[in-house]
């Protein structure tokens, strides 16, 4: 079995490109910490409030420091629970200042959901038994749709909120 000279050139080019991709990804992931979320933190789906982050009073946006925020979300069929506003109405719109570092934490008491701030890198599976989290800098002002992007039942498409990044 032998390879044509040009096929060797092609395979060196092709495999070389794949290696470059892997080096770029590996550098970003292991040195810069841009892994996709993989924390593996466990939670009892039938008792999510045992974790402070998911107690009703801690849901939604919390400012922890200058330019540092935490957003806690409970995803359930077919709703994102971001806590209540001062009138006791469910929060469906959250605001975060541009340039802030935000830690998103989410879990579910029922079935699998997705959590995607559409058009950003905040994109996670939310699964019973696990806490999903990702830290990100919100660098572009605008209004984003927080959308469930994993099928969770007949009301899947009615599961959303909005995230406003303001100047």
């Amino acid at each position, binding site marked *: 079995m032998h390879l*044509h*000279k*040009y096929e060797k*050139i*092609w395979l060196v*080019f*092709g495999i070389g*490109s794949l290696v470059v*991709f892997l080096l*770029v990804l590996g550098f970003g992931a292991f040195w810069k910490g841009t892994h996709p979320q993989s924390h593996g933190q466990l939670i009892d789906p039938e008792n999510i409030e045992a974790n402070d982050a998911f107690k009703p009073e801690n849901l939604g946006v919390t400012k922890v420091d200058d330019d540092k925020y935490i957003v806690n979300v409970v995803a359930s069929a077919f709703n994102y629970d971001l806590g209540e506003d001062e009138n006791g109405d469910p929060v469906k719109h959250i605001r975060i200042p541009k340039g802030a570092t935000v830690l998103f934490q989410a879990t579910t008491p029922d079935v699998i959901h997705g959590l995607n701030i559409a*058009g*950003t*890198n905040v994109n996670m599976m939310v699964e019973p038994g696990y806490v999903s989290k990702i830290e990100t800098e919100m660098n*572009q002002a605008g209004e984003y749709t927080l959308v469930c992007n994993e099928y969770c039942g007949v009301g899947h498409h009615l599961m959303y909120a909005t995230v406003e990044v303001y100047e």
Partner: protein
Amino acid sequence: MSLATQERKQPNNEEQPNLKGTLISVLILGTLIVVSWFGVYALFMMR
């Protein structure tokens, strides 16, 4: 027919067929792969 004459001109069986067009084609394909990949990578970095 033309191959037969070509082959006679190249009695050496080790001689490789002319695949210049193939090389150019796959290199175009490779360039597409690299450009698209870095395109999405740029999107990832910007977001």
